[in-house]
């Protein structure tokens, strides 16, 4: 069983002299599905960027594996899969080429698994079509198929349900629940309700000092 632990201590972020959230303390472990909530502009994406180390514009401390981030960053990154707001898919390349690239920068390469992952997200038959011919939802699905491919135990997903149809959402929810059962840690932002027994919610509005005062 995996033993993952991500701890936030007194985390605060500001943007353009506006405090997004302050004093955020939380502890996430193996098996958790964490939903970051809050209205638009409350700092959900900013928090995810801080957690993925893309942004280091924060105050407070983050501990991974009970060690401060400055020491455990590399170990954290090698166990992380992040799907951002933008899908990170090259339009001139086909879905297979895009996924091959992600496999190459993160480790083992297996074309068979790419084909089966694309079938699972409903893109069978589109494997070698350049991505600029695909729709917005299909783009998103190419990015989501990385969830089937990557063995990383930690997933950080920014609005994964955008532009996905109902059936796709249900499949994705199942996938997230499965990952959590296997001992993974999933942190996501979404405005939808998720059904998961191990759901934890973090509402960023609770940590917005300005609104709490008024």
């Amino acid at each position, binding site marked *: 069983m995996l033993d993952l632990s991500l701890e936030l201590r007194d985390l605060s972020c500001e943007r353009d002299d506006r405090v997004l959230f302050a004093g955020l303390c939380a502890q996430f472990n193996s098996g958790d599905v964490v939903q970051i909530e809050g209205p638009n502009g409350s700092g959900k994406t900013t928090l995810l960027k801080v957690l993925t180390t893309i942004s280091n514009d924060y105050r407070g401390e983050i501990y991974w594996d009970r060690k401060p981030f400055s020491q455990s960053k590399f170990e954290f990154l090698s166990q992380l899969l992040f799907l951002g707001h933008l899908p990170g*898919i090259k339009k001139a390349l086909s879905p297979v080429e895009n996924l091959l690239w992600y496999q190459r920068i993160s480790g083992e390469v297996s074309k068979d698994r790419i084909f089966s992952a694309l079938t699972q997200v409903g893109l069978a038959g589109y494997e070698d079509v350049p991505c600029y011919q695909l729709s917005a939802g299909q783009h998103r699905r190419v990015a989501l198929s990385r969830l089937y491919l990557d063995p990383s135990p930690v997933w950080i997903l920014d609005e994964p349900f955008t532009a996905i149809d109902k059936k796709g959402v249900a499949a994705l929810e199942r996938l997230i629940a499965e990952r959590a059962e296997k001992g993974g840690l999933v942190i996501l932002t979404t405005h939808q309700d998720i059904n998961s027994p191990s759901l934890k919610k973090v509402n960023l509005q609770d940590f917005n000092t300005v609104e709490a005062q008024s």
Partner: protein
Amino acid sequence: MSSKPQSVGETRAESPQAQSLSNVGLFSGFVAVFKRDLTLAYRNQGELFNPLTFFLIVITMVPLGITPDPEVLAELAPGMIWVVALLATLLSLDGLFRSDFEDGSLEQLLISPSPLYLLVLGKVAVHWLVTGLPLTLLAPLLGVMLFLPDSGYGPLVLSLFLGTASLSLIGSIGAALTVGLRKGGLLLSLIIMPLYSPILIFGASSVASAIDGFGYTSQIAVLGAFLSIALICAPFAAAGALRVSVNG
């Protein structure tokens, strides 16, 4: 990706996944980026020929605009070819990280366990292969159009070969700094131009002194030194600049 050294007595309990994932070779990221960017460059051939066409057009215009007199043109040739090659490189720099930034793959590069230094180096290597190298190979042909004396061709190709590689490397810093800005083109030129001038000076003067019958090895050696320094330092600076740009 330097993590602080662990204290010796500390036992590290790593999960099996962590171990299997950290087996990624040091250069696999470099190779992956290199291959992908080469494929992308091949698929966007229109952009590929932009700097080359610019180079060709400007050099063709020189005899028309200034004078067709062979002696004057021969005098102008080394500097002219170098200046235009530099501008052609500058023209292509803005796109170096732009498309990666816009589609989100830059974020993915930043959080990849591979060292960002090597990933940036991979991108710059492709940039040089599709702009600097073709410019270098085209230069002798344009030398003929400008009546470049025979003794100038060797140093011209050699100095452009080393110089354009430095131009791509140094330019990547500017491209990384301005990638987050909506209209970074002008700012990029302003940041990079002063850094380009030493390369221009030594590049053009190596050709000029070869034509005048003097040795040119010292200028080539200086260009080589520039390249080695740029090779070591520029990707670091560009990697740092990328983190700042994506952050904001």
